[in-house]
């Protein structure tokens, strides 16, 4: 406990929680300017990081060290970046909660939603879910820990490109200016630009909702339908993101920013994206189970589609792309049929929200 509240944290290391592909990329960017400590659940990964400076084969900066102990990380670091999958996010936060204090700053990089239902309830046995049942990651942090100064990272950040050191930008969103400034101070470099945004919910939702559109985009490519079709999908997808996003509490401006349209365009065009790959392989005739089995990290979009479909039923709102994706993913609907349906869907106006 001696390190707690020590007078100067400029020298304090920065924490990274989780070391998947994006976690590795973030840890490397942070390590250019700061001491970095990584938290990983498995001892063998921690050993690999400390001994070989790599995480599951991905190279890590020499100065990065690792631990399996949440308490150590919380005592050493004031600022931490949780970058774990949305399915494990809540458990990780619960594990950290006893060691977190209100002076901590958490900036997460997870794009997904968590379902918060009473004990014993899940998507299979509830008919309706409301906004309060759907938590973004910042809401998970706020509900499971005492940390209030929360931020999120979002933007077109394909881990593979970041790893190569190609130029990129990200958005740090937070209701707190100091969190944005801290994120910029820690991350900004000649090759990495960092923007700020105060609408954290909107930015988080951008990252979440774009994943569903990316699956559809992959499917279009899988069917070999060309660039006109992709342009159509991206623009209609944008409209759907904004409608859904507003319903969930995000502001329109955030969706047309870097974290929204920027990320959407990137993900919908990239064969590196997991969500895109899911759509692509579906269109090629594979089943969802087969695709899931062969991927080492989850495609968040699948979970999101499922959650949103149930949410939509409770509100009476329509979101044609999401609804059709649900049918394709879970009800054996053919991609071609879904596409045909979308072509017939009566969109009267192009844009009605700006």
């Amino acid at each position, binding site marked *: 406990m001696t390190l707690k509240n020590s*007078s*100067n*944290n*400029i020298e304090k290391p920065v924490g990274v929680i989780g070391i998947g592909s994006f976690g590795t990329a973030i840890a490397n960017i942070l390590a250019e300017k700061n001491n970095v400590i990584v938290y990983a659940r498995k001892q063998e990964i921690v050993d690999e990081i400390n001994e070989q400076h790599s995480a599951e084969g991905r190279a890590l900066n020499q100065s990065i060290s690792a631990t399996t102990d949440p308490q150590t990380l919380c005592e050493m670091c*004031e600022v931490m970046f949780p970058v774990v999958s949305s399915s494990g996010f809540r458990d990780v936060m619960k594990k950290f909660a006893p060691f977190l*204090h*209100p*002076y901590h700053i958490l900036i997460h990089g997870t794009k997904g939603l968590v379902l918060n239902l009473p004990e014993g309830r899940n998507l299979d046995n509830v008919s309706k879910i409301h906004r309060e049942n759907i938590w973004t990651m910042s809401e998970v942090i706020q509900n499971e820990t005492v940390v209030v100064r929360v931020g999120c990272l979002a933007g077109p950040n394909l881990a593979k490109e970041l790893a190569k050191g190609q130029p990129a930008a990200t958005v740090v969103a937070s209701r707190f*200016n*100091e969190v944005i400034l801290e994120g910029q101070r820690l991350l900004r470099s000649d090759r990495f630009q960092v923007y700020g945004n105060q609408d954290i919910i909107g930015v988080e939702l951008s990252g979440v909702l774009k994943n569903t559109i990316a699956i559809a985009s992959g499917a279009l490519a899988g069917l070999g339908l060309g660039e006109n079709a992709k342009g159509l999908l991206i623009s209609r997808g944008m409209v759907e993101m904004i409608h859904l996003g507003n319903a969930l509490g995000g502001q329109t401006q955030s969706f047309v920013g870097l974290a929204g349209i920027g990320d959407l365009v990137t993900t919908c065009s990239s064969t590196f994206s997991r969500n895109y790959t899911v759509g692509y392989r579906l269109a090629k005739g594979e089943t969802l189970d087969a695709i899931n089995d062969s991927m080492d990290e989850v495609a968040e979009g699948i979970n999101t589609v499922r959650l949103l479909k149930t949410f939509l039923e409770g509100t009476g709102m329509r979101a044609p792309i999401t609804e059709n994706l649900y049918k394709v993913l879970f009800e054996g609907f053919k991609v071609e049929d879904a596409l045909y349906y979308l072509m017939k869907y009566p969109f009267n106006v192009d844009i009605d929200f700006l």
Partner: protein
Amino acid sequence: MTDDYIKQKYDPILPRKDEWPVVKLAKSRKDFVQNVASFSKDKIISMTGNNLDLLKEELETTLYREKLRVKQNPWLVDPDDEEEFWSGVKSALVQISFESQATEEERKVAYHKILESITTRYSEEIASNFKHSHYKATRKMVTFGFSRLLNAGRVKGLGSIFSKQYTLQDKIQIIGETERLRDLASKGTIVMVPTHFSNLDSILIGWTISTLGMPPFLYGAGLNLFNIQIFAYFMNALGAYKVDRRKKNLLYLETLKSYSSEAIQFGCHSLFFPGGTRSRSGKIENKLKLGLLSTAVEAQRANYEKGFNDISGKIFIVPVTINYHFTLEAPSLIREHLSLTGQERYYKETDEFSNSYKISKFLIKFFTKGSDISVSIGQPMDILGNYVDLEGNSTDRDGRMIDCRDYFMSNGKVSVDPQREEVYTQILGDRIVEEFHKINRVFSSHLVAFTAFQMIKKQNSKMDLFSLLRLPEEDLVIDYSDFRSTCQTVLNRLMEIRAKGLVHVAPHLKQDIDKIIAHGLANVGMYHSKRPLIKTSDDKITTQDMSLLYYYHNRLDGYDLEKLFK
């Protein structure tokens, strides 16, 4: 918190009045006012980023608005020298712009001097005039006078006027975390945040605080109330400072906030009505005015900055809900709400609380007839809305102790960040609204008003609110048996919500449904000439004033009960 109130005598927590923070403050009033003035002056200068042109613009805007106010909306309480003072400011400003040879530094000094003269005037005007002798007299008068009335009205027979069978506590029931509040008030500083429905609230809360044995709280009362002499006496006696809602200029608002913040740091327990004004719609406040609330957050940070890290420097937020069966001003409040003219800035007093005679008449009626009031004291919280334990420590959801100071720390020390505190204030505001709903105590009158209004609405499901309010009398009739069963449904749902700890109910809601309805009908808006709800001789339920019914119905807004009518 239990539903039933405990009638209890509370000993004063600080028996010697010299120990009362308000008395101490009154003694050093002059220095304190000077402090507030210079503090707000510095704050305004820092807000303008030390830019002289911005400051000049701010001063000119203030002058312009104040001259307009003096001309268009003068009040009885305004000092006589208003015109004179602002003319002085005007000529001072004019003079600076004429002195073309003055250096930047000289101009700065001149502008700062004007600024200081304004903040000093404002501080002086805002500051309370607590006088212990008046406080004592008021307290005696209220307790003695009202209990006499109460007993005369309720105990039959000769000598009833001296009966002690009923005390004010039977009429005004204080429930909830009273002991916790007293305990923390003797250790730290309390900021009480009650809901606000009626002008009577100010006196009611003052009485509650003194009944609980606590020293008087400092609180802001609308300057318009000081127009009414009887109110002005009460307010002054209770230690109220003055909030003038006509003055919306930055200089005034900053001075007001500084006053509040400095008083909390001084250790004065304070009280804000966080809704700002009385609830026009009758709803429990759901949008709070964050200006004064932010002073609690600021004061907490300032205390930590000064190194008060123990409980004596801690600020506790205590939500309170006041429940009535009626609000005297309801007709004018709801009219105002519905017409939504947006003229809050210069609104004129039009309510029935407009003179001392009417108030006295009402009070006599109130104490000699039925109808009760309850004051529910909520669980104390810290300035971020975490509950605190018996020792005043903040705890998280799992009961783990957290250090409130950590909220203001960055790089290992307490830091000042106005934007951060702004967000904290919003978080606190949301927490207060949440607590209001939890500690709100449902009365029979709320139940019947809500049910009847929703039933009429359902019968006319195609109409919007305003057409609904204009319905002809013959369309406003409900069959008693339908009404009875629907009341039961609503009550059942309320009891479910109560089981989850999200609302409270008055003990009279535990009788059988016919008795509850009878009690509700007898009490809902009982002093209005047109009753919001009555039972006719042919066993129908109807209303004489739909807007009033809407007003009393609104009290149960925010519990999703309307879904029962879909």
